[in-house]
């Protein structure tokens, strides 16, 4: 691995000037390296982070795409690492004009990393440096604790997709209701509605009573208000205390953190080093979390800018044809298949066009006449502003969920391709399954990274039992892996572990149609023996 030469660096620096002028916003410092094939062999198992810790699984082929597990998410390979300074990798022997285009693409990524809110927690860190420290720590443990270090690594990794990434970033946004105390919130949101389940008018009466008292005297209004409440509901105080205690217990970001802080096994003095290993795994997973949730929009953004900036750049002259070919290879919509570059780019362009014409409003959406829709143009020219807003605030899910509509699908002639078996011809046919935006959107969303949501039920958890609950969101878990994964969790907890999850059971009705039952089941692991029972 070596730095690019001065000549190429100069090209990069020139590109930065044009990119900054166009509105992209990134740190001045960047590092560019040339990588050889041999470097790639070492780097690719480490998702291109040269300093990532060593782990034996990287030496073996990992069965990723078996059967139909579609999203066996491996962290996306990027040519840019989101570090400080941003590091990017290149191969040797690219002609200068191509390097200009590549640099624009890379600058697009850097701009995205450094401005999109998903990455907020990485803005003040240099992950490459952190990873190096982690790597050293782990090799130190290895020399001290031998293979047990790798077991802890392995078991932590077995739950590293459960990191509470969104819990983490939502802390950056202050959503707390500053006006009312927690007791007031509890009374109105939880107590009246859930515990007592009173009629709506009672709640409204109580709210106006509360407002009146506060208006009369800001300081004692609340106390007076609750004296009345406690008279009416003697159990209120104890319910509130219980709630507060539970709140305290429930303040954990994810299962990994909960295990780290509460496991009786890890609490032991001689095992406390394991917590650091768990932290390393968890932080690594958190670092990759925004990246895997912004693949489409990030590639779309970078493609948008390499195209826009390079076609306006003098350095393209004479290479237009060669560029077009490469650009088409990157951003053309697949005849069959999904190209994240193409979809991302088209969506960004679509939003830009809509914003330019002032179509992003209710009036436009309510139009039904196609001709009117086509002609609609308010000449607002807010396109640029809007797509910069997108890159600041949107993830893949939001981009697709908000903007994939029938207009978009029709504009690019998109459809969902299905596969079916043709008995007569003994072939598998690829066919147009649907042209409906609803189906297309669903297909796109289904292909996104989607780890299950698993939380701890603290009321059923004790030192001798960890009770996990999988929140059913229409998909069951891969059953084959549950037992194996629980072995690791049991080790980390040092006692029995239970997992509540849901199965989808297909039942054939008389008329041949299928019915589906959502069956709740409970996995229990104790002394490495797994049992399953219906709930």
């Amino acid at each position: 691995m070596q730095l690019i030469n001065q000549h190429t660096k100069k090209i990069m620096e020139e590109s930065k000037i044009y990119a900054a002028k166009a509105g992209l916003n990134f740190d001045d410092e960047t590092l560019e390296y040339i990588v050889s094939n041999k470097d790639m062999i070492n780097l690719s198992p480490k998702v291109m982070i040269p300093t990532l810790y060593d782990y034996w699984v990287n030496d073996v082929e990992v069965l990723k795409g078996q059967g139909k597990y579609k999203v066996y998410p491996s962290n996306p390979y990027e040519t840019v690492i989101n570090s400080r300074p941003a590091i990017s990798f290149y191969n040797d022997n690219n002609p200068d004009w191509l390097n200009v285009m590549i640099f624009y693409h890379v600058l697009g990524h850097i701009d995205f990393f450094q401005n999109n809110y998903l990455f907020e927690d990485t803005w003040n860190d240099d992950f490459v440096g952190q990873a190096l420290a982690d790597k050293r720590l782990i090799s130190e443990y290895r020399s001290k604790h031998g293979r047990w270090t790798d077991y802890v690594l392995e078991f932590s990794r077995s739950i590293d997709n459960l990191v509470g990434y969104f819990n983490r970033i939502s802390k950056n946004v202050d959503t707390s209701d500053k006006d009312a105390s927690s007791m007031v919130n509890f009374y109105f949101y939880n107590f009246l509605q859930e515990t007592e389940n009173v009629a709506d008018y009672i709640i409204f009466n109580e709210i106006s009573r509360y407002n009146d008292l506060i208006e009369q005297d800001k300081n004692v209004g609340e106390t007076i208000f609750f004296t009345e409440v406690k008279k009416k509901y003697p159990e209120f105080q104890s319910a509130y205390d219980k709630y507060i205690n539970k709140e305290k217990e429930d303040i954990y970001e994810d299962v990994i953190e909960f295990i780290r802080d509460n496991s009786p096994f890890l609490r032991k003095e001689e095992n406390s080093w394991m917590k650091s290993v768990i932290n390393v795994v968890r932080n690594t997973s958190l670092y990759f979390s925004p990246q895997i949730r912004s693949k489409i929009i990030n590639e779309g953004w970078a493609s948008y800018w390499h195209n826009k900036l390079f076609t306006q750049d003098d350095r393209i002259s004479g290479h237009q044809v060669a560029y077009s070919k490469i650009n088409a290879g990157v951003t053309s919509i697949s005849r069959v298949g999904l190209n994240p570059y193409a979809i991302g780019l088209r969506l960004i362009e679509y939003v830009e066009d809509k914003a330019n014409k002032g179509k992003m409003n209710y009036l436009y959406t309510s139009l039904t006449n196609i001709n009117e829709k086509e002609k609609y143009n308010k000449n607002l020219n807010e396109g640029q502003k809007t797509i910069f807003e997108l890159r600041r605030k949107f993830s893949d899910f939001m981009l697709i969920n908000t903007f994939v509509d029938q207009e978009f699908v029709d504009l690019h002639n998109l459809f969902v391709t299905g596969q079916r078996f043709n008995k007569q011809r003994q072939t598998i046919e690829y066919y147009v399954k649907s042209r409906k935006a609803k189906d297309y959107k669903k297909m796109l969303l289904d292909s996104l990274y989607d780890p299950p949501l698993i939380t701890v039920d603290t009321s059923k958890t004790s030192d001798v039992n960890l009770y996990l609950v999988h929140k059913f969101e229409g998909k069951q878990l891969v059953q084959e892996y549950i037992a194996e994964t629980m072995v690791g969790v049991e080790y980390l907890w040092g006692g029995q572990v239970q997992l509540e999850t849901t199965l989808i059971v297909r039942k054939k009705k008389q008329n041949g149609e299928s019915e589906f039952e959502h069956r709740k089941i409970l996995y229990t692991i104790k002394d490495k023996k797994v049992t399953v029972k219906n709930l």
Partner: protein
Amino acid sequence: MNLINLNYMKKLYKILKQKGLTKEQEKLILREMNFVSEEHKPFEKEFHRFSEIYYQNDYEKILQMQLPKLNPMLNLQTLDELLHRDKLREKDGFPRRIRLGKLVKQGKNGKGEVIIVPTTTEPKFYHDNRVTEEQDEGEMGETGGSGEEGEGEVLGEKPVDQQGDGEGTGAGEGGGESHDITQEAFDIGKVLTEQFELPNLKDKGHKRSLMKVEYDLTDKNRGFGQLLDKKATLKKVIDTNIILGNVSADGELNLDELLLNPQDQIFRILSKEKVFESQALVFFVRDYSGSMQGDPTEVVTSQHLMLYSWLVYQYQNRVETRFILHDTEAKEVEDFYTYYRSQVAGGTQVAPSFEMVNKIIDENNYAKDYNIYVFYGTDGDDWDSSGKKTIEAIKTLLPKINRLGITVAKNSWTTANQTTIEKYLEKSGLLHTHKDVIKIDSFASTNVQEERVIKGIKKLIE
């Protein structure tokens, strides 16, 4: 499946029925005929897996680089380490994680090959996209697309690969040098022997290895000979000149100063070489009738592949192999690849396959010169419930061979009972009279782990 086969099966069924069938037997035959006549949905793996969005990246798209694929066979030293570590896992009370015996297909066109790579999985709690609440079970694998076609229109098709599609992924994609299975089989055999503690073969003593003499340019000779060995000559020349002081360690080498002694010329010369002929002849025989579809086939072929690897190691590559498949008839196929890939066909008659083994051995007079091993894989079904012909064929076979290893990978519906083949073998008494030669290993084929397969091998070869 083809009609001719089906008609033949029907005819056979009629004949058998006239002779009298038990209810159980009839059920079994009908099940298999049904299986063959019914049009079956292809395996899940036949459907195309579209490359997912997370597998597309800047290196391939923008930089046009090929991301290197990890080749675990390159890291055989680390494989030893890995297996050692894996063994320790058991001691530490955790399940093993390295798995062998995954069969990976390389190359799309022409001949593919089968190799074993050490693989593993990273179990986590994943969402399972295979289970959906869609009405139509036959549909799978959606992706995007674009074009003018209307809904329902077919964009293209691909024939269902009669040879089946590969299991496993990744490792071998994108061509590269074609490997012959034996290259890796030796290494895997070593691993199996050493790490999984498969026994070493005992010399049975009654077969002698053959020696053959060949002439080859292997000996070296100074001064004269058939072929100048340039590298060796150059070394010798330098050697001599170091002694003469013309070459010194720090000075620059001046070629003009080198002296050339005719005696320094090294030649290759023809010489006698002893060559061992194959000592072992292995027959791999398996049932590929309708009922074998799925798990039984997977288990049997995995086990046979590992057996093959082990024998290659034991005989230091001096192994000859023959591959025979049977449904109602037996046929020989040319390589392990075809043997492994061949999809299920018709009904089940075991006898022809053993008759064929007998015929091959007799015609070539193999019995005299070879240690012969026959490994047979089945799900235990045989339309001929008496097994008269089969037993006869096995009886003729036994004196000629060192080992007959039978794997019965039972189907889910027969798991509880003894299978037809087991029954008639038991009845024949061969399992007792020839217990040194015949070994049988029978287990349910669903959800079989590698360990079980390897344990089975131990049973078959001990």
